[in-house]
C-alpha cells in the first residue's frame, strides 16, 4: 500500500486498522477496514475501474461521493455497484465493467444509430 498518507501534520498518524483482503479482476489486494473499494484500489495505484460499455474507454473514480456513477463495478455478482460507496469486505469479489453488446442492434457492425430517428430510419431500410 504505497500511496497511503501515513503521517499528516494536522490529522496525525493513520489509524492502523484491521486488514481486509479482497479480489479485483482476479488479483488479490489488501486494504484497511472501512476502506471503500475505490480507496483500497487507489492505494495500490489502480485507477481504471471499468471500460465504457460502448466505446471501451477506460474510466475511474470521478466524484467519490456516489453522485456520478463513473466507478460502477460488479461486486459478488451484483452489477452497477458504486466502488466509492462500498466498503471492502473479506473475500469480496470485485470485477471491472466491460464493453457490452449494443442494445439496439448487437449483430450489426458499422454505423450505429445515434438518435431514435436514425434508428427508425435504419429499421425501415431492412
Amino acid at each position, binding site marked *: 500500500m504505497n*500511496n*497511503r*498518507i*501515513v503521517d*499528516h*501534520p*494536522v*490529522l496525525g498518524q*493513520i489509524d492502523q486498522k484491521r486488514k481486509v483482503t479482497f479480489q479485483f479482476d482476479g488479483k488479490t489486494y489488501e486494504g484497511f477496514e*472501512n*476502506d*471503500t473499494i475505490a*480507496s483500497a484500489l*487507489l*492505494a495500490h495505484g489502480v*485507477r*481504471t*475501474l471499468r471500460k*465504457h460499455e460502448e466505446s471501451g*474507454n*477506460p*474510466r*475511474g*473514480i*470521478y*466524484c*467519490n*461521493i*456516489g*453522485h*456520478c456513477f*463513473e466507478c460502477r463495478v460488479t461486486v459478488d455478482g451484483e452489477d452497477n455497484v458504486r466502488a*466509492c*460507496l*462500498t*466498503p471492502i469486505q473479506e473475500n469480496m469479489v470485485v470485477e471491472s465493467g466491460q464493453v457490452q453488446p449494443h442494445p439496439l442492434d448487437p449483430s450489426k457492425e458499422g454505423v450505429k444509430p445515434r438518435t431514435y430517428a436514425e434508428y427508425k430510419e435504419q429499421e425501415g431500410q431492412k
Partner: protein
Amino acid sequence: MQQLDVVIIGAGPAGLAAAIQCRENDLDVVVLDEFPKVGGRLLGQLHQEPSGEWWNGIEESKALQTKAESLNTDIRLGYSVYHIEKLEKQFVVHTKQQKFVTNNVLIATGAAESPAPIPGWTLPGVMSIGAAQVMTNVHRVKVGEKGIVVGVNVLSAAIARELQLAGVDLHSMALPTRNVVSEDQANPRLVMERLSRIAHLAPSKFIQFGSRFAKWKWVQDLVVQYYPKNGIKMWGMPIYLNKAIKQINGTDKVESVTMVDVTMHGDIIGNSEEEIPVDFVCIAGGLYPLAELAGVVGCPFIYSEELGGHVPVHNEKMETPVAGIYVAGNITGIESSKVAREQGKVAGLAIVIKEKNTSEITGKLQTAISEVKATRDAASIQFHPHIPEGRAKVSAAYDDLVKAQEVEKELEYV
C-alpha cells in the same frame, strides 16, 4: 409497519443536528445516508480559521455522531433513497433495503459538484476536487504524485491547500478553457470577483489589494489586466487567472495537460500551448444544491445565483409548502457546514413543535433561527457575498406560495 415521526435523509451536519433535537424530544427518527460514514461533506474539511484554530471535519463529525448515538438515534449508513412517495398525510421513503413510513421527512442531502468538462476529462486520474479531498483526508490515500487543479474558486483554493498539507504535489491552479458549460468558470474577470471573497486567507498582497476594493470594479479589472505572468502564489503554489487548461492527455490514464494563455476575457492567445506532465487532475466547478428528492415529492423551486442554483422554496423554520417536508443544509443554498448545522437544529425543532403540538419550545426555535443568521455573519469563508439577499428572495417566494394556497382553499369553500 413501523410509523416514524421523521425520516432524515443525509447524515451530514444538518441531518445530524436535526436528529439530535428530535431525539432529545423523544421523536421516532431514522437517519439515512448512502455513504459508509457519517458527516457528509463536513467529513473531508480541514482548514485553519483566521483565529489560527483548525477546523477538523473528522472531529466535528465524530462529535455530532457521539451526541446522536448517546440519544439512541437510529442511523442507517449505506442506504440510498431513490424516491419519496406522498400519501394523504404521510410519506413513504424508498430505499433499496426497505421502505419507511413517516409523518415528516427532512431532506438534508447537501450539495453536489458542478462539472467543468474539458476534452480528456473521462480519463482515469481526472477527478472532482471533492473526490481528492475525501481520498486525502478521510481515506488517507494519495491521489497521485503530481497534479493540477482546473477551476479557481473558494472551494478549490481551500482543498488545494489540504492536498499540499498531506504532501501531495500540485503544479498550479488554472482556469478551464471556455465552453458552453464552463462559461463563468473560464472568465478571469468573474473568477477574480469571486476569489476576492477568500482574499483574507491569501498571503498575497496582490489579491488582498484587489479584494479591499472589491466594490470598485475597475480595480478588479486592473488586477486581471495586469495579472503577473507567473501567477499569484498562494502558499507557494501559483494561481493562474491568465492561463487555462485546454485538454487532458493520456491513453489509459492522465499523462499531461495542455495549458494555454488566455486574455482577461478568457479568449485563448495563439501559439501559447504548453504541455505539463501530471498524473492527476482535479476539476473544480464549485457546488450546487442537491435537490432532486425535493423535486420528486413536489416541492416548488426558485433559482438563486446567490445560493448556488435551484433551491426548494422554504421559510425560516425550514418548512417547504409541502406540509411535512423540511429542508436544511446545503440543499437550501451553498454555505459553510456551521450554517448547515444551525439550520438542522431549526428544522429539528420545527418538526418537534409540529409532532408534539407544543409551544413550549417555540422560544428555543426562535433562538435557533437567530443562531443561523449569527453563524452566517461570522463565517470566515463566504461562498457568495449576497447570501442574505438570496435567503430573503426564497422566504418571499414561500410567503407568496402559502398565500396563493390559502386563496385556493377559500375558493374551494365558495
